């Protein structure tokens, strides 16, 4: 049974020969990549944004615009979906060979549904951030109150103890 050896390390290691003596003689690490890059034959982008439906070549069924009423659009897409399923059932009874168009429509509706739901995620992220900040502010205020209370308590105890000491001190001196 023949086994292959591991591939050799990349030849850059020679550049780091004097690293222990002079750390600056070795090359700097490569800077982080910006924009799009190719990895194993696939294109990736460093900008993590949900690509719009047109970019994926899918027709967008719900209206575009700055503020989308998600609930209304989701509900109307749901109704469209049910209607299309019913249409498909009818077509299979009447003209079974023309199912392809209907199936395409149904898959288009599903793609739109999922894209709508995905575009809700940034909103959810911001709402989570707001919630976390509110909780943190509440905890900090609570901590401030606690510290104030404890400091006042400590001051009170000290004054009491001064009073007690003076009394006992006075009695000690008199004795």
């Amino acid at each position, binding site marked *: 049974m023949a086994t292959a050896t591991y591939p050799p390390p990349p030849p850059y290691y020679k550049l780091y020969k004097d690293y222990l003596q002079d750390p600056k003689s070795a090359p700097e690490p490569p800077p982080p990549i910006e924009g799009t890059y190719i990895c194993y034959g696939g294109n990736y982008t460093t900008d993590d944004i949900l690509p719009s439906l047109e970019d994926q070549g899918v027709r967008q069924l719900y209206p575009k615009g700055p*503020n989308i009423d998600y609930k209304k659009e*989701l*509900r109307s897409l*749901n109704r469209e979906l*049910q209607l299309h399923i019913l249409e498909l059932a009818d077509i299979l009874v009447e003209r079974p060979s023309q199912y392809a168009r209907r199936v395409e429509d149904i898959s288009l509706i599903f793609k739109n549904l*999922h894209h709508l739901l995905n575009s809700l*995620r940034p*909103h959810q992220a911001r709402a989570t951030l707001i919630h976390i900040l509110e909780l943190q*502010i509440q905890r*900090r205020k609570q901590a401030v109150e606690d510290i104030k209370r404890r400091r006042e308590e400590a001051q009170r105890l000290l004054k009491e103890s001064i009073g007690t000491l003076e009394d006992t001190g006075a009695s000690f001196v008199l004795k």
Partner: protein
Amino acid sequence: MDIISQLQEQVNTIASLAFNTFGTLQRDSPPVRLSPNYPEPPANPTEDAENFAEHAKLVSAALVKAAKQFDALVAALPLAEGGEEAQLKRIAELQAENDAVGQELQRQLEAAEKELKEVRELFSQAADNCLNLKKPD
């Protein structure tokens, strides 16, 4: 599971119910007479036909139920009015408030630690005096 993931799961459930419905109905449907030239299809035992109709009703009811559940989930979406700008504004406000409260907390903490240090020193002095005043007899 958060509401958006539930919605996504529900969409996938509706999809799988739809193709299961069509798949089983097509596979199990009794043969039908297409043209008057050919004789009637062989009569099938009636129980099969009954079960088939029942099955059709059940799966379609399940599909409609799933769609209704999707609507219910959509109604439960806590979509606060704001567009993106309103949310970002609120985040900026909260950050400013957080910073202010954080600085107040820091001040209180430093004052409290200072007082703690003073009390410790006084206590150690008092303890030393106590020990020194005790004359061994």
